[in-house]
């Protein structure tokens, strides 16, 4: 079975690219890239403002993908699998939670985001996707598990489509590389080489 890449989405360095074309670019020196992207997309989803940056980033990446591939919204409940990785887990929210604890307070809204896989939850809630998901903590340079996991999901018919990639956000620095992967003879083949190359772009 051949898995092909059918959509690319990357966010970082003030821009959003879908299938390697720039679809949004913020002016140099812009602050709060994520809010700017949200305003551009205008998904009318106030819950966005409660999310932490990691979740906002992942949410927006998938919003752009669904904009490009609206048929994904019509998928069967568990047809879409979400398979993500990052190096820093939920460090940004972890730090904020710790700062609150230092002041003798614990904010539930912050604590909720001190797990990296909450971004998966937010995406699933938004899109009503009930499929399988996974979150790995590991370096950009080692994405073998993302490939193996996605391949075995689709091979075993646990999912028809995988949205796979690397999502990192810390101290206002955002990095997202997501691929849509499915059984197809078109598009670049999905494997460790093509995923690693995309992440390195």
């Amino acid at each position, binding site marked *: 079975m051949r898995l092909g890449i059918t959509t690319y989405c990357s966010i970082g360095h003030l821009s959003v690219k879908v299938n390697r074309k720039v679809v949004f670019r913020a002016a140099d020196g812009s602050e709060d890239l994520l809010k700017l992207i949200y305003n551009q997309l205008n998904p009318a989803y106030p819950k966005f403002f409660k999310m932490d940056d990691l979740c906002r980033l992942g949410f927006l990446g998938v919003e752009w993908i669904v904009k490009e591939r609206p048929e994904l919204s019509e998928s069967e409940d568990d047809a879409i699998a979400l398979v993500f990785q990052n190096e820093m887990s939920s460090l940004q929210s972890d730090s904020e939670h710790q700062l609150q604890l230092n002041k003798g307070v614990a904010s*539930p809204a912050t604590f909720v985001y001190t797990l990296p896989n909450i971004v998966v939850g937010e995406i699933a809630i938004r899109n009503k996707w009930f499929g399988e998901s996974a979150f*790995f903590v590991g370096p950009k340079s080692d994405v073998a598990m993302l490939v193996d996991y996605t391949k*075995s999901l689709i091979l075993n018919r646990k999912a028809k489509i995988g949205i796979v990639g690397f999502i990192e956000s810390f101290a206002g620095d955002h990095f997202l590389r997501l691929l849509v992967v499915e059984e197809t003879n078109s598009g670049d083949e999905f494997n460790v080489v093509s995923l690693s190359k995309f992440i390195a772009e």
Partner: protein
Amino acid sequence: MSAAVTGMGIISSAGLNVAENLATLKSGKSTIARIQGLDGLRKPYLGGQVKLSNPELYLRTGLTGPTVLPRTVLLALHALNEAWSGHQVNPNLRTGLISATSVGGMDLSEQFYFDYRNRNNADKLEWLAFHDNGAGTNILANHLGINHSVFTISTACSSAANAILLGARLIENNILDRAIVGGADALCNFTLNGFDSLMIYDSEWCRPFDDRRKGLNLGEGAAYLILESEKSRKISAKNSVASVSGWANANDAWHQTASSPEGRGATLAIAGALQKAGLTPEKIGYINAHGTATPNNDLSEVTALNNVFGNSLPPFSSTKAFTGHTLAAAGAIEAVYSVLALQEQVIFPNLNFEVPMKEKTCIPATTLTQAKIDHVLSNSFGFGGNTSSLVFSR
């Protein structure tokens, strides 16, 4: 094709190894008590603490090198040593390590931070190198001599169940011959205070499935299983104590930390695991429930169980009243308990239960009961809607 379980190791408040944990479960006595030794706690929380200090744990690991390691890693090493005992690295067997944690090196980092903030003391800066979840897994991998296929999963309370699921699947797909799977989490100020802020931490002993339940007690610990393919067992010559015959993961897609009232994700996971195992519901002899004793989880979980099993459930219990909720380790600790239930042919009791939930008619098992059990279902549901179920078979 199921993955055979050929080794198990565990450490929790209920005991320092498999035998001690089994004895505790059979005794019917909880090991949850007032948490000692954490200075930043806002309340006198009850929890399932492992009765060894970090230096004591360290001494038992047989490690050399840095003598200060995160508690999560020490617990993991302890359980790994028991699981791996009698096994060895083999160039003819593709072996992977899939380890789960949510706390990672947080316990050391917060200690460093208190020192640094209050006393301007940055002496222990090198402790921060252990903070990230992957760093701990690397230590485990080095200890075992495994340098390929080493992965860290972090999906909250379903993490270790997902590690087991993944290991079994990789074996089934002939990507690995052997997988060392499980997880570890230690108690720390960060998580204790955090869960309390969600107002789901019971100030008393937790009461899974009881109508008066007020929330969970946290726990700490680690557990690992060695999973092998048939080919691997022919080479390793290890006996199988059980098999991982079914598994499934789904997303509840409802809320970041609460479960949906209709238990949608859980229903998909439970049904999916049974389907994978090729079993109809009445073949399940015992359900080791997620059963955290939060008002939300227990009702949602029973709803999901009813969706799959109908109104009359097989015997079920939550063992979290023995150990506390061990977060990322829970899926593996409870996997060990599921295998023990198969080996011993017993149903473990659900402690602290007296009053059935008003919304449901089900009653968990409250005493240790001999039963013919061929298959056990184990549930682990995590924040972020990540729901997983596993089936273990004789």
